């Protein structure tokens, strides 16, 4: 069965410090991968998605970047954190099947980031 991991679970960082959040998926190959941010326990904002190694699409301009160095690894980074980067970060994956249209996304447990 497939499993998605995120770490760390919680993180407190000072303004201006770097960030690296990691997400890995087990039990599948060539998944689509996604990073979301959720502010104040409400709506989800899609930050980045990836359909393959080294292929990153950014949804909104911001202080963050993403990388996919391996097939099942997705990393969210920042060189200098802002107060506004605080939030709950969720990684998700979906199965890539050529021509398929209905593949649901499966979410990791999330990382709670507090920037002080």
């Amino acid at each position, binding site marked *: 069965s497939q499993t998605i991991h995120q770490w760390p679970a919680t993180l407190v960082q000072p303004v201006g410090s770097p960030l690296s959040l990691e997400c890995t998926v087990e039990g599948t190959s060539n998944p689509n991968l996604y990073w979301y941010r959720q502010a104040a*326990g409400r*709506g989800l904002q899609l930050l980045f998605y990836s359909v393959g190694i080294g292929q990153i699409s950014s949804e909104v301009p911001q202080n963050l970047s993403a990388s996919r160095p391996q097939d099942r690894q997705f990393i969210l980074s920042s060189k200098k954190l802002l107060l506004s980067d605080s939030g709950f970060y*969720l990684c*998700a994956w979906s199965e890539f099947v050529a021509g398929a249209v209905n593949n*649901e*996304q499966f979410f990791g*447990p999330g990382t709670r980031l507090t920037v002080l």
Partner: protein
Amino acid sequence: AQSVAQPEDQVNVAEGNPLTVKCTYSVSGNPYLFWYVQYPNRGLQFLLKYITGDNLVKGSYGFEAEFNKSQTSFHLKKPSALVSDSALYFCAVRDNGSSNTGKLIFGQGTTLQVKP
């Protein structure tokens, strides 16, 4: 533009009573619809999806959803609510403008409060 609307920020229901969480959508092409549930400080869990076929879709934990094409709605229902159903619920629709990416468009979420 494609979108999902969850018109109620919060739904309150007594334990044992039926519950409905509303969702309407706007997409180009065929709608592929999903419901997720999120418990505090956790990732989203997939509940059910509509792709085609029967308008009544059954999912996890006794939940079901009714697809209504003429009203462009996909309301989540449960015949008898449990206190443990209290959580944040998200409706989502596949982004048909981004083929093969698996991107979803999420509603803003509805908090379900079930009181004993």
